[in-house]
């Protein structure tokens, strides 16, 4: 019997693996001969609502993974750096990002900040923008600054040929993304409840496609997937439930995700798509709300506790992860960090300390987006899985 959910994932896989972004180019061409515009953005968080309100297609750019051979990209960087910027430069130089009319570089880390400077040097005809998200989290200062910065970005998008980002239009876009956020969380909830029905490699593909597809289409796709996957009758195995954390920017190759699952782990939560799930609550905007301010407020109050965001309140690092472990009834954590990823690796000792305090088993490794050898990781994850099943207090 055919599985409609698998067919949907096949569609997603085709979109994600098309590094030339032909689906974006297709979206841009309109039947009357005119062309719409698309703007790329780098991980982790960019408020796509503003791009959407300008009438542009927001396109997440997360590198070429293991499908892209880096030939020129390496020459633009030093040896000791993560893989993501090399593959993005390779994509840019190879014309794979030609469909994008501009790029937004958020203040994720210094590599991405610097990439904004390089982009303007390499592609002077393309619009590039550094989005300075606030590190001061008081509404009066950071909130006001950020709302103004978003207005600045909206004006830039208008200058690029976009629609005027009026309060009405932006409120409409926020509502569209609120719907999307809700459905996204529904899919993640289904995986938490029934990981045997929603393998993580499938969920990953589904969510990755959302970086490229128009938000409305992606919401529909997720609803279809949700309906089909929930009807599956897969048998639950005696696999430990684990959370994968630390992989929020440079993405692991699909082979690595499959390897973790094959090694006997049910991944019940992950941060691969942290940027798309950054705002933890819907904005529920009303006609009275000033929408730029609402986005800023949501950033200050409802952001995910990621490694790229300043935590000024003394909350022990890793506390959110511990909370997730409890909520998801996870039995262990796999810390997966890209090599040379400063935010992820700098957080790790504090996170492992939090896990140790709570007696939560964990294991950790580093990867690159083009890691090709998984045997070592399979053995590590398999041993971790066995140790939880055989030796944990619960067993």
């Amino acid at each position, binding site marked *: 019997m055919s599985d409609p959910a698998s067919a949907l994932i096949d569609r997603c896989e085709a979109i994600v693996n098309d590094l030339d972004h032909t689906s974006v180019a297709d979206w841009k061409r309109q039947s009357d001969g005119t062309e719409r515009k698309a703007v790329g953005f780098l991980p982790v968080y960019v408020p796509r609502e503003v791009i959407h309100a300008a009438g542009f297609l927001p396109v997440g750019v997360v590198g070429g993974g293991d499908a892209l051979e880096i030939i020129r990209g390496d020459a633009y960087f030093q040896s000791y750096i993560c893989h993501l910027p090399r593959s993005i430069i390779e994509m840019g130089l190879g014309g794979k990002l030609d469909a994008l009319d501009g790029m937004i570089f958020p203040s994720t880390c210094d590599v991405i*900040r610097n990439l*904004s400077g*390089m982009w303007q040097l390499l592609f002077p005809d393309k619009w590039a923008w550094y989005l300075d998200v606030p590190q001061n989290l008081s509404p009066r*200062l*950071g909130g006001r*600054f950020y709302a103004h910065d978003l207005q600045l970005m909206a004006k830039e998008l208008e200058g690029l040929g976009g629609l005027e980002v009026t309060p009405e239009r932006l409120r409409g876009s926020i509502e569209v993304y609120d719907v999307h956020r809700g459905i996204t969380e529904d899919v993640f909830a289904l995986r938490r409840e029934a990981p045997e029905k929603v393998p993580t490699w499938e969920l990953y593909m589904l969510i990755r496609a959302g970086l490229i597809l128009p938000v409305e289409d992606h919401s529909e796709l997720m609803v279809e997937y949700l309906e089909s996957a929930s009807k599956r009758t897969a048998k639950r195995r005696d696999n430990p439930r684990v959370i994968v954390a630390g992989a929020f920017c440079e993405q692991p190759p699909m082979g690595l995700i499959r390897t973790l699952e094959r090694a006997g782990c049910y991944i019940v939560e992950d941060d691969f798509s942290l940027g798309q799930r950054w705002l933890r609550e819907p904005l529920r905007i009303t006609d009275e709300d000033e929408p730029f301010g609402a986005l800023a407020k949501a950033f200050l109050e409802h952001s995910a506790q990621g490694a790229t965001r*300043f935590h000024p309140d003394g909350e022990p690092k890793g506390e959110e992860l511990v909370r997730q472990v409890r909520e998801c009834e996870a039995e262990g954590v796999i810390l997966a960090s890209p090599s040379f990823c400063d935010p992820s690796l700098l957080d790790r000792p504090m996170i492992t300390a939090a896990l140790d305090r709570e007696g939560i088993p964990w294991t950790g490794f580093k990867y690159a987006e083009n890691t090709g050898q998984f045997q070592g990781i399979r053995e590590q994850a398999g041993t971790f899985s066995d140790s939880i099943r055989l030796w944990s207090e619960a067993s």
Partner: protein
Amino acid sequence: MIPPSTAPSDIVGRGNKEGGQLFRQWFANLSEVAERKERAAYVFVMGSLNEILKSFDMPVSFPEINALQTAIRRVSHEYLDEAEDIGYSPDICGYVKADVALQMRGGEHPMGKIPKPSMAVFTNACNTYIKWAEIWERMYDIPIFTVDIPGTRQAGIVTMPGQHRFENDRRYVEGQIRELITLCEQVTGKKFDIDKLRDCMANANRLSLAWERLLALNRSCPSVFNALTDGTVYLGVANGFRGTPEGTAYFERLVEEMEYKAAHGIGTLTEEEYRLIFVGVPCYPIFRRFNEIFTEQGGTFVNSTYLWFASGGTNRGYQYDTTRPIESLAEGLLLSVRDAMDSMFHQYAMVREMAEEYSTDGVVFHPIKSCRTVSTGLADSRRALMEETGMPSLFIESDMMDRRVVSEAQLKNRIDAFFEGLASRKHQSKAEGAA
């Protein structure tokens, strides 16, 4: 003004001597603070806010300077190993790891003892600063304060005072400075004294002017100081003593020395054949030797991006208006730290400009394992520089802390080849001139 009859021995070299003395005194003072079980504010070189902290008489410690001193004194590997043993990755910043180990050792440092932090103040000029402060916050339960300095949104489009975009950014910085003052009052139990701040700012003004003049003086041929070695001494004083009368006096005397050297054609110890610019952070584990590999072949460093970004943008020589101290401090901080960030993130135009102004023969790019902040983009800047100007350049990698990735022999091979290229270019140019 130095009388014309002054003997060179009275003045030449005094900057390094006095700088060394000041720095030994600096560490001795920190040790005394630690021995008294008192604490110091932890700050960073890119936007230390020393003006504010000194107005509260707070002792100040620079963890970056503490860390690099362990490398210069050839013990950094011990500190790195200890931090890696508790889970810090070999991939991340060596300064952070040296500091974590130093904290675990109760402040033990080759130059004395480092006090525990009372608070930490840092900008976003380097994202690792933020992560680093989060470590202290959890280690000591202290307040930490980010001064978020808005960066350049688009390369080449630099906003200036009076423009709407700039003023919005400035107001953001000013609001944060006011929050910082409140926090300092809480931490020290002292009331903010605006006149004391004015004094610190007036001292910082004189220091900034002197720093700007100092850099300009190295346009002389021969250059009057080595930007890599002497420059690092000056940087230490510029950061540690910013806003203080001692710092101001030091730099004014230093400028006097360099004016004298420039007027008398006195250069560094190197017979200057090639004027070089250094881009990146020095190789501290073999600091002296690294420089020697260049000077042995007649190369001197006449300027560096390090003297720009690690001085927090003091090179701009920004002068505070002490009649409106907070507003002006915000404006100066925004301009200077943004400039420091641009010299890392949008550095190409600055390197090109520097190369022209300092009659440069070549540019040495030195990315390091520890630091993505200063190293990302160097290869691309080099490519752009070579394409546009044909300027000879060298791209060598090592580290500022970790001797495991410093290979002197490999570095020497590459540097030798670079000088062969420079020599051949010089001969060719002479031959063309003769023809």
